[in-house]
């Protein structure tokens, strides 16, 4: 009962947050005349998609052009926190007025800032406008270290809170009863799934307990954020290289820190190989452990989720791009059908990528802690009888 009340309170908080945000969010920009803000050509669609898969400094839900020709944005601004040549500077992202091509200059603490393609640039002293070269690189401004509460950070915070309330609630339920009720009944099998299908078989009975907490956190974090990316709120957290890189590096740190003697031995001085081949193997193994493995983790997640977003949005864009050839009804119908089915596939991919990331993390950790013990069971001819652990070790 207490849990239910708490959850209710939490949801109320979220709803209030959104509602209050909407109240102050309506914002107007005067970027031009007519229907400039509308996305209705191929080029604009491409730019819009590329813009979307990037992180953004404000939380915009949708925009429209009012009758008077003004572009209205519905959403709410997020705080910008940047480390500049003058120390930490903060302001709200609304000061950029949704401008993303460097035309709006924000002055703060004697410094000038511009936002170009979701990146915040600090203008050099004395410069009033951003100058671009032929390749559209800013010549008189440089990027700053950006710790802003961007849309991705909001997503992370939101999902972090959600996870915390869900699973802390589930944990609390076990204090009074053996079998959870309500939403906990949905969560429990998922926890068991990660423990029994991912952690236990890949890490081994002896060590799995220590790493299950990390694997569970990462699994639910990625899965829920992937699903959040499919909602119309337009989050693309797991499609941010920084986020997937962070996750991959966590796994790298964990399996490097928990690697046992055998692991390092096999990596640096392969026991069963001829001596002259050992240094070569060591280079390959080191590259595998420190570059290839984390890289495969971060690129796989990033690429799959980004590609999913691009495909879904491209299919939605069929509505505009094929309007001339198929007619309004035809283009809309085709777009709806295709995007519906691709979204279904994306729901599967959301789970699959979370599963694969967690599975591979568990596998890498399992390799690091695997014990190549030398007191195996011997059969009567003195041959070793391989056990499951060894087979797994060999396979890896």
């Amino acid at each position, binding site marked *: 009962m207490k849990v239910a009340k708490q959850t209710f309170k939490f949801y109320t908080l979220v709803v209030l947050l959104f509602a209050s945000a909407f109240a102050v969010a309506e914002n107007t920009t005067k970027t031009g005349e007519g229907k400039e803000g509308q996305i209705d050509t191929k080029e604009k669609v491409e730019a819009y998609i590329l813009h979307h898969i990037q992180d953004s400094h404000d939380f915009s839900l949708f925009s429209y052009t009012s009758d008077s020709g003004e572009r209205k944005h519905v959403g709410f601004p997020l705080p910008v926190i940047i*480390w500049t040549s003058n120390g930490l500077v903060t302001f709200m992202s609304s000061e950029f007025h949704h401008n993303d091509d460097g035309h709006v200059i924000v002055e703060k603490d004697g410094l000038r800032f511009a936002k170009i393609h979701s990146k915040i640039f600090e203008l050099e002293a004395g410069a009033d406008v951003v100058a671009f070269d032929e390749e559209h690189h800013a010549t008189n401004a440089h990027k700053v270290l950006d710790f802003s509460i961007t849309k991705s950070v909001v997503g992370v915070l939101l999902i972090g809170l959600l996870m915390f309330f869900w699973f802390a609630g589930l944990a609390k339920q076990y204090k009074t009863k053996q079998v959870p009720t309500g939403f906990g009944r949905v969560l429990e099998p998922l926890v068991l799934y990660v423990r029994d299908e991912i952690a236990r078989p890949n890490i081994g009975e002896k060590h799995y307990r220590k790493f299950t907490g990390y694997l569970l956190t990462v699994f639910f974090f990625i899965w829920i954020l992937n699903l959040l990316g499919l909602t119309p709120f337009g989050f693309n957290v797991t499609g941010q290289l920084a986020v997937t890189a962070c996750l991959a590096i966590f796994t790298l740190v964990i399996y490097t820190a928990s690697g046992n003697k055998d692991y390092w031995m096999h990596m640096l001085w392969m026991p069963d190989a001829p001596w002259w081949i050992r240094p070569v193997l060591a280079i390959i193994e080191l590259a595998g452990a420190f570059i290839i493995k984390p890289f495969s983790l971060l690129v796989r997640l990033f690429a799959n989720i980004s590609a999913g977003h691009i495909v879904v949005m491209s299919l939605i864009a069929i509505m505009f791009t094929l309007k001339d050839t198929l007619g309004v009804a035809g283009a809309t119908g085709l777009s709806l059908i295709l995007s519906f089915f691709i979204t279904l596939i994306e729901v599967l991919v959301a789970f699959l990528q979370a599963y694969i990331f967690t599975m591979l993390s568990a596998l890498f950790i399992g390799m690091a802690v695997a014990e190549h013990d030398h007191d195996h069971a011997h059969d009567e001819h003195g041959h070793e009888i391989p056990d499951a652990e060894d087979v797994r070790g060999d396979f890896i």
Partner: protein
Amino acid sequence: MDKLLNDFSPGLFVVQTILLLLLIFLMVKFAWKPILNSLNEREEGIQDALKAAENAKRDMQNLQANNEKLLQDARLERETMLKEAREMKLKMIDEAKTEAQAEAGKLVANAQLAIENEKKAAIAELKTQVASLSIEIAEKVVREELSNKDKQMKLVESMLGEATLN
């Protein structure tokens, strides 16, 4: 590649690292640890309960087997007891019979002995009477002899004749 690197935001990386560390710490402390512990406890509880049930079943079976054995033993014992009783009965009857026979034989032997003795006594008495009769006769004869020789002879003869008849 250039674009990808350009898209990579070091700031977001730092923020995400901090948040993920925090999330892992909080989740492990407040969610995963209690959940996994409770799940383990529950699984162990179920295992124990199953084992206990198995043990109880085995005990029950053992008990039943014991009972069966006890019953079997009791039956066997009864059987042997009955058999022994029967044997004893027969033996007692036999013994009684032989004893009775022996007693009877003894009695008969005693009786025969007594009869024999009586007979002997009777014969002895008869002999004494015959002897005294003979003496009487002899007296009478002697007395007759003294009066009439012929008569005496006749008498002796007739008496002798009587005597042999006896």
